[in-house]
């Protein structure tokens, strides 16, 4: 009985928090489906609406065109009188829910979406591969192999995160320039194959919870370290590794500054730059920008939804231990 009420409380909390956390996305979706004359409204309204006018006994959607004295000129957008312009009193207009998809079609035309998508995907896939591989190897070296100097290396690695990137940017750029990598994706991709302090640290924490007895047992069976890494550690840390993959994908997908600094051609730019270009210096088309934000967010949500299975199906260590 107590158990049951606990579960109900838990579920209600879940729903409440979910509503709270979904709000940014819902608002983004809602703005992306609003007409221009509704985007600027001050009321917080999650339901996209369009103005309607009662014409021949039915409400038809209209678009406000201009002002005429105290009245408004409107254009009828649907029904048999589609396209006609009428002069009406402002208070004869009403609102009704309406989805404005033109922000999406316009957004796709605003920049070469598919070329940018391809550029972005190439970088993302390489970054995910490089990060997962190099970080899990390094984390094994730091967590599962006892050797003199590993604490020092760990602290050096951690220390590199503590210096703000703004002051190492220029020498780093010159390094890449010296390697002839400017205007290629190499500066964005190769460092991923050389470990990432954040993920190495993360995996190290997970690997350290793996019972040493499991690895010892494999070693007694004659397994090499590489084999232990591949057959014992990796399967046991599937959840953590999936987190690394998802996080590093998201990082590369949303990275704006890296591609902007190292790539020099419009042809090579990524979606994050395309999205940034929808925001003008003094004036922005918010509907279109939100539409493209949604388009950029959807693949990440899908990826997360699919990958989360791994987060929770990580092998129960207790079971293995017996």
């Amino acid at each position: 009985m107590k158990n049951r009420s606990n579960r109900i409380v838990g579920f209600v909390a879940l729903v409440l928090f979910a509503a709270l956390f979904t709000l940014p996305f819902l608002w983004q979706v809602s703005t992306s489906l609003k007409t221009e004359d509704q985007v600027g409204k001050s009321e917080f309204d999650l339901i996209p609406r369009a103005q309607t006018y009662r014409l021949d006994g039915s409400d038809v959607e209209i678009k406000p065109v201009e002002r005429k004295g105290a009245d408004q000129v409107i254009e009828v957008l649907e029904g048999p009188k589609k396209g006609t312009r009428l002069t009406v009193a402002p208070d004869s207009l009403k609102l009704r829910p309406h989805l404005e998809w033109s922000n999406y079609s316009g957004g796709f035309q605003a920049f070469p979406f598919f070329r940018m998508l391809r550029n972005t995907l190439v970088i993302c896939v390489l970054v995910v591969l490089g990060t997962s591989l190099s970080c899990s190897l390094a984390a094994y070296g730091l967590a599962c192999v006892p050797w003199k100097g590993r604490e020092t290396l760990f602290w050096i690695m951690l220390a590199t995160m503590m210096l703000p990137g703004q002051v190492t940017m220029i020498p780093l750029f010159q390094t890449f320039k010296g390697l002839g990598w400017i205007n290629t994706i190499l500066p964005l991709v190769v460092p991923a194959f050389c470990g990432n302090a954040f993920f190495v640290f993360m995996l190290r924490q997970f690997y350290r919870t793996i019972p040493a007895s499991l690895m010892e047992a494999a070693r007694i069976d004659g397994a090499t370290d590489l084999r232990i890494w591949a057959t014992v550690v990796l399967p046991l840390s599937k959840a953590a590794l999936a987190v690394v993959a998802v996080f590093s994908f998201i990082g590369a997908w949303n990275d704006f500054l890296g591609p902007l600094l190292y790539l020099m051609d419009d042809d090579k730019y990524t979606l994050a730059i395309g999205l940034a270009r929808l925001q003008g210096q003094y004036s922005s088309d918010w509907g279109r920008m939100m539409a493209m934000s949604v388009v950029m967010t959807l693949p990440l949500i899908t990826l997360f939804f699919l990958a989360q299975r791994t987060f929770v199906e990580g092998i129960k260590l207790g079971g293995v231990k017996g």
Partner: protein
Amino acid sequence: MKSRFWTGIAFCSPLIFGLLAFTVLPVIASFWFSLCNYPILEPPHYVGVANYRDLARDDQFWHSIRNTFVYVLGSVPLGMAVGLGLALLLNQKVPGIKVFRTLFFLPTVVPLVANSVLWIRLLNPQQGLVNSFLRLLHVPESWMPGWLADERWAMPGLILMSLWGAGGGAVLYLAALQDVPSELFEAAELDGAGPTQRFRHVTIPLISPVLLFTGIMGLIGGFQEFARAFVMTQGGPWDSTLFYCLHLFNSAFTEFRLGYASAMAWVLFAIILVATVAVMRASTKHVQYEQ
């Protein structure tokens, strides 16, 4: 022992290579810059410790340190607590849990600009949902926070906003919770431990390595917080959200003082290092690795 040394080196070799190839040189260079007058576009000129001396006299520097400490002290513990709470909620066996997990993760993938624009509206003192909620709780109008329009409330506003990203931490805790063997819970329950005790004595110790990780990363990231203020407040009102790294960025790229900015960066490095070592030391007793 020797063979283990080389094994360790071998596994860490990509990491070591990366440090040598892409990190060592820029780091040394930036330390050299901190001893120079370096207007970015002209070569650096050695000026000794002048930049460090100037720092001590820079009101904005002290101001930005204070702001940043407030942010770290507020956002890191709260963020971890919210993240842990979310993870516990998400660790339930209820219908649709996969969808819930995805929803909680949403704010961390929404592009920053879209998120910022939304929060400017949510935090609006007159019409924003946050204050509407406070009105529901009958908070008197004169106590109503002015959030981003008020120098006293802008930083709490940004901290509140940062909690929205707690879903990222929750995912890590969730991954760690999967490793908590259910027998341990059952054993604890048989011993008569209530839910609070089970949480304190079973759950927390078992996910402590991940808590340590998110704590340290929160610390390192919090001290370097930049983007939200850069996009939403530009440090205002009245410098109340002038983060350390925003001041550093302005010094480097709008005032052409990369030498000064580098000195700031190294001071921050020292601060973060001390904080990290302190947390690591303090946690040694509490973090439990192998079971």
